[in-house]
């Protein structure tokens, strides 16, 4: 990693222990990584490995049992909406508000004056290419469009970091690919730092600069893959030999971890 780029968000020895019926379960263990400014970082791992918990810890929404999260060098203890926006698999739009009002909602909570709110919402709608839907309601939009609105809403407060928790997980394959392109376009334009969770290796690799690979129970980072494929990327890249080679490396990391856990799980306890 080039040392010249400053680190925006950093995890230091993060761990999370849940107690279920008085039995402690180690969900996350000793997770450390740093995300440089403006990079697209993905986290892949099997479902239930604690990816979402990790994301919510990064956002200051869930306290960690051990370790700490730093944003711009300061420890995160509570949500910092001016620096971090969070997105989920469901767009979580408010169904009784028009699209423009939905984008303005976080600004309203932050106390931004009405005139500026309107201007920013209009700008964000133009960015995601849905200006003509400003006065519509969420249910009038397709799933993909709703996610684009969620991106616009996330970007409206002009945060430094976008945390995305499987944002395209509920979409069909075609829409998902289109949304990937769209996200890359928006990312190139806004130069935000993106931390993106997915369980699709292809999606992670297609989108990211860096792919973090996570294991299951306890959730640990088992590999950091530098996905230095050329940009701008098109769909063709997925078929390339280079892409396949890197994807196989990730796959091996994940599957190896599975068998290891199965055979040596008892010993490690």
């Amino acid at each position, binding site marked *: 990693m080039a040392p010249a780029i400053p680190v925006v968000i950093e995890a230091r020895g993060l761990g999370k222990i849940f107690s279920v019926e008085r039995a402690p379960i180690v969900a996350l263990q000793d997770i450390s990584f740093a995300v440089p400014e403006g990079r697209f970082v993905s986290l892949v791992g099997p479902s239930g490995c604690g990816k979402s918990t990790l994301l*919510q810890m990064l*956002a200051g*929404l869930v306290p960690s049992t051990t370790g700490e999260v730093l944003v711009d060098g300061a420890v995160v203890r509570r*949500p910092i*909406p*001016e620096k*971090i*926006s*969070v997105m*989920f*698999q*469901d767009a*979580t739009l*408010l*169904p*009784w508000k028009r699209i423009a009002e939905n984008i303005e*909602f*976080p600004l309203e*909570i*932050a106390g931004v004056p009405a005139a500026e709110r309107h201007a920013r919402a209009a700008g964000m709608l133009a960015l995601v290419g849905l200006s003509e839907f400003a006065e519509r*309601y969420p*249910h*009038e939009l397709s799933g993909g469009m709703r996610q684009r609105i969620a991106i616009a809403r996330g970007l409206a*407060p002009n945060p430094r970091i976008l945390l995305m928790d499987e944002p395209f997980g509920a979409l069909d394959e075609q829409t998902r690919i289109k949304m990937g392109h769209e996200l890359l376009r928006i990312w190139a334009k806004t130069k935000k730092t993106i931390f993106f969770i997915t369980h699709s290796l292809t999606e992670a690799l297609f989108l990211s600069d860096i792919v973090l690979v996570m294991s299951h129970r306890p959730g640990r980072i088992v590999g950091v893959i530098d996905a230095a494929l050329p940009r701008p990327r098109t769909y063709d890249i997925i078929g390339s030999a280079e892409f396949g080679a890197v994807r196989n490396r990730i796959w091996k990391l994940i599957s190896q971890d599975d068998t290891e856990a199965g055979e040596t799980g008892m010993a490690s306890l």
Partner: protein
Amino acid sequence: MSVRRLIVIVIALGVWEAVRRFNLVGPLLLASPSEIVAALVKSWPDYLVALRFTVSEIVIALAFAWALGIGAGVVAGVRPFFGAVSGPLLSSLFAVPLITWYPLFMVWFGIGMASKIAYAVVSGFFPIAINTMNGVRGVDPHYFVFGRAIGCSRLQVVLRILLPMAMPSIASGLRIGTALVVIGVIVAEMLASLGGVGYQISYYQSVYQTGHVYLGILFALACALAANWGLSVIERRFTHWRELQIGER
């Protein structure tokens, strides 16, 4: 359609009137439309006083039942443990014939307005609380996380996100609860009171003025219908997005 309905109503009223005119049913059992109108003409000022009494009880009881019901429902919905503890208790309590508690309310709050209000609040409270709890629990938890992530305080999360999201369910709770409040006030007045529409009904019954009894029942029904109508206006205002949504599918 409306003309036909009008004709049906006119015929029904005519038959009703005829039944009494030809004395097919005794004067103590049934009052004819003309007798009810006569009762209204004769003692409308009394009924106006009674109506004002009853309506003010209903309004006060509604304010308490709505506030307490929604408040308790939100707390039980947001705190899963509280909800798990109180949920079964609430639905067991649903079986209790609340009317049997009214004499106790008389002892505790006197025979005036307060005992009617207390009884009506208790009977309206449960459906509102249960529906609010279910509505809040039904909200995708990501909305809660989203709200906190954009910097909402807990109160803002509840008022600006959870309550509107749960509105369709809350509205149906309010509908049931409001009906129970209105009926609760009037029935309590019928059992023991010093004034109000329900008092009129049971007073005139005890002096065998059948026309006035029917008139009182019509006033009581009017209260119930008015509350129901007012509520559906509010409901449409707050949940129109939901109807649009369902219409789409």
